[in-house]
């Protein structure tokens, strides 16, 4: 079996310095939740439009502060703007969240392997997202919506910590109403006024409106969540060869030179972050790999 996006296109290296970021200016910012924000970026240097494949990430640099891997959360067919959605958790992402319109960030990328959207054609698609795992999947959803007729039933299962952690609620409503995507949401902890599901995202898997024998699954979330989601999908009879996950490790370079992102024999930055479940399932079951 060939993994279609394995051959990630090599990115042009400005000035022969693969570790030097290109400046991008922030055109808009959007507060998604109390701790999560989206930045809309545009290159300050007039070059080719920024093209990427769903699932790829950039190394995002805050001047003098640091650089972190962040998935691209925008529409792959709209190359004018580059979108990143991040949760402010530490040094770099907190500084990033404080930036506003007109401020400049550094970008290196796009890097990594993408979601197998071509392989998914003609199949039902189940997308399982936990927390900040939803933004890395949004480009796939955009792509599917644009070519909606080529996919079967499409089902998004999304778990957030609390109702106020839910990302893109209005957009999800549109996906449901206008694009025929079944959206199921659950929260770990309920709050006053919440009438929806409570429980971990794996509890939604039995509800997924898909034909297990002809389904492709994409999962992003914390490692335990991905492990249990995959097991739950297997229980529903989904072929393990059609399950994909996006892995996360510390990354200092994004280009296979720093060694930090190793996961067994894989460099997550260049062999992943998207992996066929079959390729990494043994490693996923081991601790501290």
């Amino acid at each position, binding site marked *: 079996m060939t993994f279609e996006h394995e051959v990630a296109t*090599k990115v042009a*290296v*400005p*000035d*022969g*310095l*693969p*570790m*030097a*970021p290109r*400046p*991008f*200016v922030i055109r808009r910012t959007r507060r998604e939740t109390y701790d999560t924000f989206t930045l809309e970026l545009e290159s*300050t*240097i007039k070059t080719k439009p920024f093209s990427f494949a769903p699932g790829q990430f950039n190394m995002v*640099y805050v*001047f*003098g*502060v*640091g*650089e972190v891997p962040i998935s691209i959360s925008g529409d792959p067919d709209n190359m004018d703007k580059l979108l990143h959605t991040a949760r402010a*958790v*530490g040094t770099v992402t907190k500084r990033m969240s404080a930036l506003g319109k007109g*401020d*400049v*960030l*550094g970008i290196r990328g796009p890097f990594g392997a993408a979601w197998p959207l071509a392989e998914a054609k003609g199949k039902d698609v189940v997308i399982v997202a936990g927390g900040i795992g939803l933004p890395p999947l949004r480009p796939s959803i955009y792509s599917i919506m644009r070519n909606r007729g080529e996919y079967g039933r499409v089902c998004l299962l999304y778990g957030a910590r609390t109702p106020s952690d839910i990302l893109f609620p209005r957009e999800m409503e549109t996906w449901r109403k206008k694009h025929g995507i079944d959206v199921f949401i659950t929260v770990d902890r309920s709050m006053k006024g919440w009438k929806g599901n409570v429980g971990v995202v794996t509890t939604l898997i039995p509800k997924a409106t898909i034909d297990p024998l002809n389904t492709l699954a994409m999962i992003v979330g*914390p490692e335990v969540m991905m492990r249990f989601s995959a097991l739950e999908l297997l229980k529903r009879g989904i072929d393990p060869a059609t399950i994909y996950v996006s892995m*996360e*490790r*510390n990354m*200092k*370079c994004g*280009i*296979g*030179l*720093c*060694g*930090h992102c*190793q996961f*067994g*024999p894989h*460099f997550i930055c*260049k062999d992943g972050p998207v992996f066929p479940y079959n390729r990494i399932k043994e490693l996923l079951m*081991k*601790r*501290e*790999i």
Partner: protein
Amino acid sequence: MFQVAVTAMVYRIETAAVQSLIEVLHQQNYSVLGPTLRDGSIVYDELHDASDLPMGWTEEQRPGYYRIRKRNDEALFGFTLGPHSWKKFLFPSISKLFSASRNAKGFNVLKDKAEPKGGTKPLAFFGVRPCELHAIEIQDKVFASGDYKDPQYNNVRAQVFIVAVNCSHPAETCFCSSMGTGPGVEGQYDLALTEIIDEKQHFFLIEAGSPKGEQVLENIQHHPAEGNEVSKGEDVVRTAASNMKRTLDTRGIKELLYENAEHPEWEKVGARCLSCANCTLVCPTCFCNTVEDSTDLGGTEATRTRKWDSCFTLDFSYIHGGNIRTSTKARYRQWMTHKLASWIDQFGTSGCVGCGRCITWCPVGIDITDETRVIRDNNGSA
């Protein structure tokens, strides 16, 4: 692979010609780097002339033990390896990746400031052991052959002149025979030396491995070696091989380690290991590194610095929400499995050349060959 059609000519040079060799390299504008004695160990540094070589010295190495010792002859290469490896010149422990300054458009990467470490002179590595030549070729695969290449490494590497030396006196910690990397020189060198020394004679055999090497050789006194001299050289390597006691059985090593990720030995070795990272620092192939971003006080100039890092530190595997490899056991397993197994999947070669440095410089004497043996002997007992 192709075979070299004709065996390169073997020449004899006298010991005094070693000085000429260094001089010729200097004349050709090389900065000559090689083994020299400093603070009780043999390290790699600038060689001004042949007297900087550790003449008449050898060393004793055991797990967790290294002492230099006088020899009773005047051998120039009568030792093996110290704590340094050539990686410190090709992949410096600290280097600046770029600097950038703020401007109206945000910031601007300053091209001229990518610092060429070790000056701009091309480097001549004088006295590269067989295992180290392999280690350099392994790091070439990491830094110079993927989709993304390290520009600093490549700039320096492209100009390196290599004078290799066949091994005559393996240390107790050496196991290059097992790894197929020694004790005879193989690979891309410019010149290769073999030191012949006994009560009656002291001279060198020399072979050119490249046009650059031939050109240097032309400039020093040499003449074709006689048949018995050539066979003396072969004896040196053969004796070295038969004197090598330490072994590592590499049969099916990748599968062995992959299948034994839960072997109880990891727990045991993890309890001994101090997580000090010495092994990764002395290893000639370990390449992991980290970057640090900083600004000047005014916040207008930013710099990114790259530093050697080690999979033995807790921070190495940090991601928000916790470190992945919290236990020393997991870190040792990561290191050894990477060296001997996953490296093969990643780069098509072992990540270990059998130099033994990690054994010698481990403060508690952990031995990668012993660890492999224990796992092999109780294969699958987890």
